[in-house]
């Protein structure tokens, strides 16, 4: 087995917990899309071509509520803006790759693969050479899983129309909790999370999910400020000890 293939397999394997979390989410997307009046072809095409879980979710609920195309596209833009933050954080690791790598890796960049891949890039124990193959493996696992779940959900949606109310969307909440909580090891990280949480709740009534973006930006800013204050405090303690 070549080292590249092994790295891709490793990436897919590390993504398995994310697949488990995305499974119910993808199935419920399929059922909801069909219930909101989208055709089977459009439902599958959306998962194949857009490949952005939360934006797809919001889009089909907007379709169901009769929103216009412009509103749905604007909402997609704002909900997905967070991916620009992800690509910014991964850019230092992929900028050496040719475009034929950067195009597909950008297309397949999701919350889940980002969480797995950025962790791997920051792991100094493994050599950098094949990390883009790991990235690719994680993406392919998420992509095929998402398509299979959408298909299952769309078919089940015809058979079991009440499925949308089962609460399967809680799987996404549990997955994200499992990603975030272990990262809250330092005080600035905790501050970033607390500020993001409070702003997300307070700003939730804002249109087009703008509250999400505002909460993310203020959370990031709060983390940076807390880190700087922390560093200064440590310097002062060191001064007193001298």
């Amino acid at each position, binding site marked *: 087995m070549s080292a590249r293939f092994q790295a891709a397999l490793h990436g897919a394997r590390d993504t398995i917990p994310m697949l488990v979390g995305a499974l119910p989410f993808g199935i419920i997307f399929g059922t909801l899309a069909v219930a909101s009046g989208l055709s089977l072809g459009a439902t599958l095409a959306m998962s194949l071509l*857009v490949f952005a879980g939360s934006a797809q979710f919001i889009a089909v609920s907007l379709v169901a509520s009769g929103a216009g195309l412009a509103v749905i596209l604007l909402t997609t833009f704002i909900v997905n803006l967070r991916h620009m933050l992800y690509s910014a954080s991964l850019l230092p690791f992929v900028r050496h790759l040719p475009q034929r790598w950067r195009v597909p890796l950008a297309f397949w*960049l999701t919350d889940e693969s980002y969480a797995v891949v950025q962790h791997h890039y920051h792991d100094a124990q493994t050599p950098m050479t094949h990390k883009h193959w790991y990235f690719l493996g994680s993406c392919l696992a998420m992509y095929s899983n998402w398509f299979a779940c959408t298909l299952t959900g769309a078919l089940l949606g015809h058979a079991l129309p009440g499925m949308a109310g089962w609460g399967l969307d809680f799987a996404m909440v549990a997955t994200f909790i499992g990603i975030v909580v272990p990262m809250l090891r330092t005080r600035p990280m905790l501050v970033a999370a607390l500020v993001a949480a409070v702003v997300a709740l307070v700003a939730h009534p804002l249109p087009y999910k703008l509250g999400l973006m505002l909460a993310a930006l203020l959370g990031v800013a709060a983390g940076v400020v807390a880190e700087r204050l922390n560093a200064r405090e440590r310097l002062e303690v060191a001064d007193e000890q001298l």
Partner: protein
Amino acid sequence: MSSFEVALIAGMALITFGIRYVLFAAGHRVRFSPLVSQALGYVPVAVLTAIIVPAMVMPDGQRWQLSLDNAYLIGGLIAILIAARWRNLLATIGGGMLAFFLWRWLAQGLF
């Protein structure tokens, strides 16, 4: 597919890919200052928390439900405890889902 569906999917696909690709496309022409690099470290925590907390507190997307019959809130809190104690993703998803469904089943009888 209707023409609305074609426009919807083409539009969403272009917008999503554009957002994900624009910085990757620029490659070496983009360099981040130390401040931006430092800030990027807080992105996953801030974004994911901003998705999680409203989903727990307002599961219907409309009003706050800080009550015991809100299974999203209780299930989420239990998932947080599991994640903090064991730092294991699969255990958090499995335990959280189990707590969510059990609580919802119990709450239907109790409240």
